[in-house]
């Protein structure tokens, strides 16, 4: 009997209990549609409202901030901010307890709500990001700043939302420095200009009396470097944005140009031209020591450091035509990395360290492209009659560059504008500027 019981027991535990093997279905496709997100205007109470109105001369600050956010999200190409008119819940209630069904009704998959207060002369902002479909909160943050920084509030919130929903750092709390242009092509007037990345708060740093070209931000964002023809002597200068003080870099007996900062902000790297030969030099801003990096009878210019400061990519015609090279930051181990047909120029190392963006000229057409740092995997992103000089957003995802167009063969209707494009080749769009613009350069995140 015991034996039978034992047998039956074994039988039961060894039978396959009506288990079907788990069906697996592979989902390898989806859509690349921008994520529908509802950005609710930030709510605020009555006392704050009147105080803010008085101080900032803005009627509905909560709404203005959410507009900044919506605009940023839309321009990134990854999000689709839904129309405010369809919102069913009021901002203050939505921020406390959103009724997810209401938001799901208008097809929102994410919801952003927030609150803004004036406390002791300071602006206090609180926001929440909700997953509408899962019905839960994804992110909740608060911070304080001075009231006149209200636009930056919008940018900082966008960065946090972007990071939470895409996994990548944002690039919205940044500025762009560029050359503002006016006048006929034969006698262009050029000024240094800075603006927020969304085109607002434009400020001019020079008056336009002398030619200025190719500006760059320092990693600390307080100093910029550029080429100026002050007193008809083309030299590299640095300028402090806060104080406006300009200073020539070094004491070179010839033209210096194409300046950039090293990743730690301590050095300027640039080209120095003498007797028909241009080589790359660095100067330490503190101790003023000058170091020669390349020594070759060819033209070496447009240097760009890797984010870790160990390598430099640059443009040289030592092979006969403009090509892209990579060398160690002490100038050793130079290696050519561009091999396609045509000319290559303006190499810029991505802040992510994985790619180098460049301009290529082939058969009369200009291309903006990227390649891996060993030269492989070259991808051309956009083609145009004339465009050049890409610059990376701080998250290494978006490139800003400039384009010149003419409406006629004789040069009439000449204009230059800034454009941006996503690394995937999508979302090519015009970057609005007050005047014509060229030579753009992106700052790093301001809120670091």
């Amino acid at each position, binding site marked *: 009997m015991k034996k039978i019981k034992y047998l039956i027991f074994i039988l039961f535990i060894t039978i396959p209990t009506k288990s079907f*093997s788990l*069906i697996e279905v592979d989902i390898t496709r989806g859509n690349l549609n921008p994520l529908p997100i509802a950005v609710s205007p930030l709510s605020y109470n009555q006392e704050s409202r009147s105080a803010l109105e008085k101080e900032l001369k803005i009627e509905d600050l909560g709404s203005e901030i959410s507009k900044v956010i919506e605009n940023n999200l839309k321009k990134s190409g990854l999000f689709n901010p839904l129309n405010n008119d369809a919102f069913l819940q009021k901002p203050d209630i939505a921020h406390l307890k959103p009724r997810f069904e209401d938001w799901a009704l208008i097809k929102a998959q994410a919801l952003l709500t927030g609150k803004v207060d004036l406390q002791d002369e300071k602006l206090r902002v609180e926001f929440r990001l909700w997953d509408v479909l899962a019905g839960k909160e994804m992110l909740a943050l608060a911070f304080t700043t001075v009231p006149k920084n209200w636009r930056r509030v919008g940018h900082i919130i966008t960065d946090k939302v972007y990071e939470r929903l895409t*996994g990548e750092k944002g690039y919205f709390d940044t500025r762009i420095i560029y050359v503002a242009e006016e006048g006929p092509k034969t006698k262009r007037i050029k000024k240094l200009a800075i603006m927020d990345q969304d085109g607002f708060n434009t400020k001019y740093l020079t008056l336009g009396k002398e030619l200025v070209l190719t500006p760059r931000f320092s990693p600390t964002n307080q100093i910029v470097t550029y080429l100026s023809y002050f007193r008809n002597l083309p030299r590299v200068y640095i300028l402090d944005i806060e104080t406006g003080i300009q200073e020539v870099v070094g004491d070179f007996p010839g033209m210096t140009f194409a300046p950039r900062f090293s990743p730690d902000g301590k050095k300027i790297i640039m080209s120095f031209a003498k007797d028909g030969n241009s080589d790359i030099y660095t100067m330490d801003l503190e101790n003023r020591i000058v170091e020669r990096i390349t020594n070759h009878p060819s033209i070496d210019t447009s240097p760009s450091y890797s984010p870790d400061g160990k390598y430099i990519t640059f443009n040289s015609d030592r092979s006969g035509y403009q090509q892209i090279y990579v060398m160690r930051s002490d100038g050793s181990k130079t290696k050519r990395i561009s091999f396609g047909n045509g000319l290559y120029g303006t190499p810029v190392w991505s802040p992510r360290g994985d790619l180098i963006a460049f301009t290529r000229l082939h058969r009369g057409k200009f291309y903006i492209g990227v390649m891996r740092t060993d030269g492989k995997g070259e991808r051309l992103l956009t083609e145009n009659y004339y465009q050049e000089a890409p610059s990376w957003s701080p998250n290494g995802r978006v490139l800003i560059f400039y384009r010149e167009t003419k409406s006629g063969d004789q040069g009439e209707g000449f204009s230059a504008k800034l454009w941006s494009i996503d690394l995937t080749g999508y979302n090519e769009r015009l970057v609005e500027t007050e005047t014509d613009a060229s030579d753009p350069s992106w700052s790093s995140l301001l809120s670091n």
Partner: protein
Amino acid sequence: MHRSLVISFGFHIVIVILTVLSLPFIAKKPIDLPPLISIELIQITDKTNIPFAPKAKKIIEKIKKEKDTLVSEQAPPKKVKKENPKAVPSPDQKMKKIDEAKSEAIPLPEKKAKKVKMTEEKKQNPTKEDTKVKQVSEFEKEEIIDPNKIAALIDKSKKEIAETTKTTNRVTQSQDKNMNISGLTLSEEDALKAQIFGCWSIPLGLPYNENLLVKIKLKLQPDGSVIKTEILDHARMNKPGQGFYKVLAESALRAIQLCQPLRVPTTGYERWKDLQLNFDAREMLEG
């Protein structure tokens, strides 16, 4: 006269040889053509029509007639390619399977060993193979319920009777039911896939050179609504440097939520009530 003729002939030969040697097709290596893979286009219907089904029926009937109980070594079954529906499992294979089932009647230690082999088989071989294995487990299932079988445990002499009864039961069931035991049919799978393709908004910001695979297990209601979701490899969600995995997983969960109720088959709830969806964003982002 002869001399000049010979010389002329000689030179002609030299020229011919030179031409031949310098012709491209002599010097070149033969082109490496990839071997031809024969593909049969399957018609998609409601029920998966697998050609070998009729043959299986024949084989089962054949086994029924067989009297001897082979206590064969449990050799692992041959792997049948998923793509080739014409793959007819060899009669030996089929026999082995049936044998295994029969041998269940034999005392315990072997049974355990067989159990292990069964599960192994299931893991190794996708759907088609599963089908065959499933058949066997059906056998086993039948066994337990079959009172004759249990009696047979006690009295080995009754074993054969039990088996015959069992196999008889087996064969009388409809062919289709046997084949559809596991997996979704091709059209069911396509319908579900198409539905989810439409709901899944792939976050464009994902790094396209990383592993972008998220596996999610679902428990479903008969109407296709989701009772529960479980992200396999949940630990990866919080790993440093893998922040994008969380974003990817969340997008997959949103897709599932958005697509409720899922487009599930109208019958056979038991087989698909637990479903696993493998979201892989690689193809979309790399292309």
